[in-house]
């Protein structure tokens, strides 16, 4: 039998040649710092390696963070290399807020930056978590922005409001309605990703949007004459912004998380020093892609808690001055408005001992 022709080997050679060509056009430069060179899984049917708890010693802690000013502040620690200085390997992944919670819910992150209310929502629907750091409370950066001519929340009656349903803007709007004697049936909610609210506010059908900075500021610019009619500054303490960690990771690597907490309070100290403001603004504004001047008011709209203030917020007390009291209120709201069905054990969502440990070490 003649063996002159080997079309099958030819086919393979061709395929490989074609891909070498394709591949060679690929840049050989290293991948951006935000992604690990994780080899792509060759088959579609992956041998479903049951994701080992990403907690073994010495491994990177992966933390999802997003464009809320209180969390962008982590960028200072990242840029200055303070995590390495404290001896902890932490990798921060820059993501959209909701995408970061989804990735956390899918078990692909060790920790994620969330508000206390959204931690309850994520816990009730996907994966519970434990808050170990209180970064800040929202003090004006979450805004209900209304079109020109709408001066108050009551004027929204019968109108459409665009916001991301089930998450923090939803909570703020419901609270605004309650404070102004309206109910949730008085407005129509149009479910919109927060980062798309600036475009949406331009549409004729929408009377108002609810978003946080920088999206809320963008909306104010997009629609001249629009103004915030209710903000988190009207109800400080409703929204606490925290770092939430998986239970497994916290149990396995508590020491590392204490170090992360320590870095946070280095960041806070750095930010509170007036001389550093320009440096702080340069780092933070670059992360979200606005100018330092635009970013400066965000610092006031997000009340970063000093260590002493955080210890007060960690007290278990009813009311918005405590992260527990605030979460109790969020939980009741979420159940009432059927964001989820069953009341959450909100106390199980927090562990204040790490902050206290850092406070003890610093004194």
């Amino acid at each position, binding site marked *: 039998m003649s063996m002159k022709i080997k079309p099958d080997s030819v086919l393979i050679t061709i395929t490989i040649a074609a891909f070498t060509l394709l591949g060679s056009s690929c*840049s050989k430069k290293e991948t951006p710092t935000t992604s690990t060179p994780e080899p792509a899984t060759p088959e579609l049917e992956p041998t479903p390696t049951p994701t080992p708890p990403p907690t073994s010693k010495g491994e990177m802690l992966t933390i999802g963070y997003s464009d809320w000013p209180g969390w962008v502040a982590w960028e200072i620690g990242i840029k200055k290399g303070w995590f390495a200085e404290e001896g902890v390997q932490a990798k921060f992944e820059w993501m959209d807020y909701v995408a970061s919670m989804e990735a956390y819910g899918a078990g692909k992150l060790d920790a994620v930056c969330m508000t206390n209310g959204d931690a309850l929502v994520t816990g009730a629907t996907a994966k519970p978590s434990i808050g170990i750091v209180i970064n800040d409370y929202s003090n004006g950066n979450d805004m209900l922005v209304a079109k020109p001519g709408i001066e108050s929340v009551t004027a929204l009656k019968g109108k459409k409001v665009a916001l991301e349903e089930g998450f923090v803007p939803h909570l703020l709007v419901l609270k605004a309605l309650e404070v102004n004697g309206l109910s949730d049936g008085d407005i129509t909610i149009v479910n919109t990703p927060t980062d798309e609210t600036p475009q949406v506010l331009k549409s004729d059908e929408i009377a108002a949007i609810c978003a946080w900075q920088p999206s809320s500021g963008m909306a104010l610019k997009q629609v001249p004459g629009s103004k915030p009619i209710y903000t988190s500054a009207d109800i400080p303490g409703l929204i606490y912004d925290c770092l939430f960690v998986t239970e497994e990771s916290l149990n396995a690597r508590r020491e590392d998380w204490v170090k992360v907490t320590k870095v946070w309070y280095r960041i806070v100290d750095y930010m509170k020093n007036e001389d550093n403001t320009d440096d702080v603004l340069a780092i933070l504004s670059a992360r979200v892609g606005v100018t330092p001047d635009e970013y400066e008011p965000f610092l006031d709209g997000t009340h970063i808690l000093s260590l002493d203030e955080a210890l007060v917020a960690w007290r278990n007390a009813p009311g918005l001055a405590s992260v527990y009291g605030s979460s109790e209120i969020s939980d009741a709201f979420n159940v009432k408005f059927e964001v989820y069905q069953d009341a959450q054990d909100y106390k199980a969502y927090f562990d204040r001992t790490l902050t206290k440990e850092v406070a003890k070490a610093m004194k």
Partner: protein
Amino acid sequence: MAAREQESWFAVGRSLSRERSRLLMLGSFVLPLCLWALIAYLPVWDSQIRLTLSSTTESDAFPTVYVPGDHMASDRFAAFQEAVRGDNAQLTPGITPAATRRTNKRILRSLAPIAVTQGWLTADKENDYAALYKLWQTIAEGAESAPISAENQRLIIRNWAALRNVSPHYDSNNFLSDPLAQLIPQGQLEVKRPAFLPAPHEVIMRGWEDFRGESELGELHVWKRYGVSLRTIALGFFFVCIVGVPIALLCGTFAFFSRLIEPFVDFFRYMPAPAFGTLLIALFGIYDAPKVGLVFLGTLPQLILMVANTTRMLDPALLDAAQTLGANRRQLITRVVIPGILPNLYNDLRILLGWAWTWLVIAELLGVKAGLTEIIDTQGRRFHFDHVYPIILLIGLTGFLTDQFLAWFRGVLFPYTEEGASASARGAARVLSKVNPLRLRRTFQPKTLPAST
């Protein structure tokens, strides 16, 4: 040649001469460009003010910070100026001296953008208060003032007097704690095109800056990201070929596999691949793998159905002849089916590579945003479409040039098919056959099968 030139441009069923084809290909690009330019430059758009110098105001009518480069309608700009004048009329110190110092520093900086465009200050000195201090002194003493309004010139002189009283040189420990007057916003009249319709020259200029890494894209290096995107496509397409082509060959050759596999694939291809996004993240994490996975998932069903069909189109006479000559099943596949469909398979894969590209932007949004999509997404969100369009054009151009190359390369690989090969491809094929120790090209040529014994 003379006869050819007289031939009609619209001859039914005839191909055009090479010169005409080239001309029309050029036209197909130039026409949309002209249309774009026409719409963008037509004098139908209103004008607006682009801020060159900005301030902040306490007025409720301006609840957000405007920076140089922002746009405003003319009447709103006038109201903005009036609001700042109103604030200046009753200067109030900040809550603390530190807050007032902070505001004063911002006022110092407010002069920087205009000074940079005038070349009075280098861009890296925008936050250098010593340099800014000197700049204020120079302008207050009347040396340079061209684009600065007379009103602002007076304010600068007034502010400088206050600053100098505290310290003639910048000293961070000895800086004015009494409130300075804000400069009145200045702007330039500009054509007001919709945000999504930047003019061609703006897109070209911005693209040039972005591609050279000289713009405010900051950490978004275009070429690095381009490499990441290319790799996503290449990997996704590579795996889809490795998995899909053998399945498709089986389906096209054996009715058994066709009936077993194709109905489900046909059903599956109507499910939008992005709907599996969360699943892909749960399976593959948040980095590159889910992105490659989506390209794979989006392309696989199309590939199986298309290539299976191509396989079925093989001239049955070839199979009959081979069987008559005694070829067994394995020989039929390896020596008749595969060599027979190779040229058409190559064409299918060319089309499917284009198909794979269409998934790129959706894929790169999964998990941690990556590649060119991050630029498109973040800049589009800020309405910076002059940054977005160069990237979109880059993707389009990449796809187009790849396809043009692959079309030419087809002539090198398969010069014997009906479509034939261009002269350059023939030349390349000849060179290839000489230098190639594997004698790649020859093996593609149809050969008579020796009868099996």
